């Protein structure tokens, strides 16, 4: 699976949400997932994506957050890739 990395740590709103929403256009089930690197939990974005059936996993590394967005059917692949 292809990992689409989006580093939004230094972007002001609405930049982070804009970038992830725009990458979402090219995220395909079974083919790709998004890996966002951010300075906090992007709660507004997560709550915006949840009703669309996009799932996510958050991993925290010190003050950096790694958020993975994917289609529900790709969960096991993504979990394997990111080692949770």
């Amino acid at each position, binding site marked *: 699976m292809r990992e689409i990395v989006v580093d939004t740590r*230094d*972007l*002001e*709103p*609405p930049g982070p*949400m*804009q970038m992830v*929403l725009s990458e*979402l*256009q090219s*995220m*395909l089930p079974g083919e790709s997932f998004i890996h966002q690197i951010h*300075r*906090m*939990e992007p*709660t*507004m974005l997560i*709550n*915006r994506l*949840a*009703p*669309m059936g*996009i799932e996510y996993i958050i991993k925290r590394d010190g*003050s950096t957050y790694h958020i993975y967005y994917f289609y529900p059917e790709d969960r096991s692949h993504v979990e394997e890739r990111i080692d949770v």
Partner: protein
Amino acid sequence: MFDGVSLDQAPPFEAPLLFFLTAPLFAIVGSILLEYGAGEFAILHAFSIGFLAFIMVGALLQMLPVVVGVKFERPKRVALLFWLPLVGGTLALIATLGFGQLSLALFAAATLLLALGGFALVTLVKLFKAPRKSDAVIAMILALLSLLLATLLGGHLLAALARGKELSLLPLHGALAGFGWVGLLIVGVSYQVIPMFYITQELPAIVRRPLAPAIFAALLSYALFQEEWLFKVVDGLFLLFALATFWRLFQRKRTVKEPTVAFFQVAMIFLAATALYGLFHGHDWRYLVAFGYGFAMSVVYGMLYKIIPFLVWFHLSSRGFFDIPTMRELISERLAWLHLYIHLASLSLLLTTTKSAAPLILAENLLFLWIIKAPILLYFRYKKRPSPFATST
């Protein structure tokens, strides 16, 4: 292939907006009361409920669905249901405390209990059900518990006034309303908003995690035991919050000077000064003014200059409009700086000659309304257009 964003996901912007626009009007009422020398408690509540509580209820109505995932059914109707008694109650409270209209005391108590007590209860029930309770959510829960207690105590004070009895528990009401409700809510909202808008790191977990529960515990102990030193613990904890937050804003990666950051920095300086004044001097009216006008109102102005354009973007983009001006273009930076200078001038006059601040408070709130006019008009202009999603999918 991903095909579109849900259209009705965001709660309508009209709900918080109703509250955001009412607040400066009450600040203007407050400035007129100040000019004409109405009772100090009427002026105090024109700002504490009329301005601050309106903003905070509006902000919570907006934040809870998108930040916490807590939904209100029929958000516009819910907003109106709280807004009407809150307006009526605030006016009645001002009439009771400022003009001795004791016949209105019970009406004020009932409507404010309905509006603020009801809002606190409903929101608490929803927050307790939130799947994940971040530190921000915990601070909000404690703030709402404080609001509930403070409103009940306020009702008790009004009942005593109406019956001509001596007021008991006055300092408790003030402490829970000011430091529990206003203070803790700002702590919770800052956890969420400062890293998001100002590209700072979060506060270190060792400060962030225990801070709000510690403040609440100290306030409750003060309420129970009425020992003055417990109140100084509250001061000490707010001092910690102010210094840590100021430091984060100081360290931020982007060094462009922006008025909204300056409002937050002013707020934290005043919070630190208030806390030191409380620790070493005492809790008099200057302490209240510095906390309420210097800290809380500065945070509110700074926050709204970010949140209003952001929400406009958020709502319009979730309906598929992406050709709108950027957030920076929506708020005139020059006028926002001017607002900050007027705010600092009102504050210095409030702390010294007090009454002479009235015209400046009036001016700053008219200017505030003028500045937020652009994003709001943009929202309503786009709202009338059909969503591009509706035609493309």
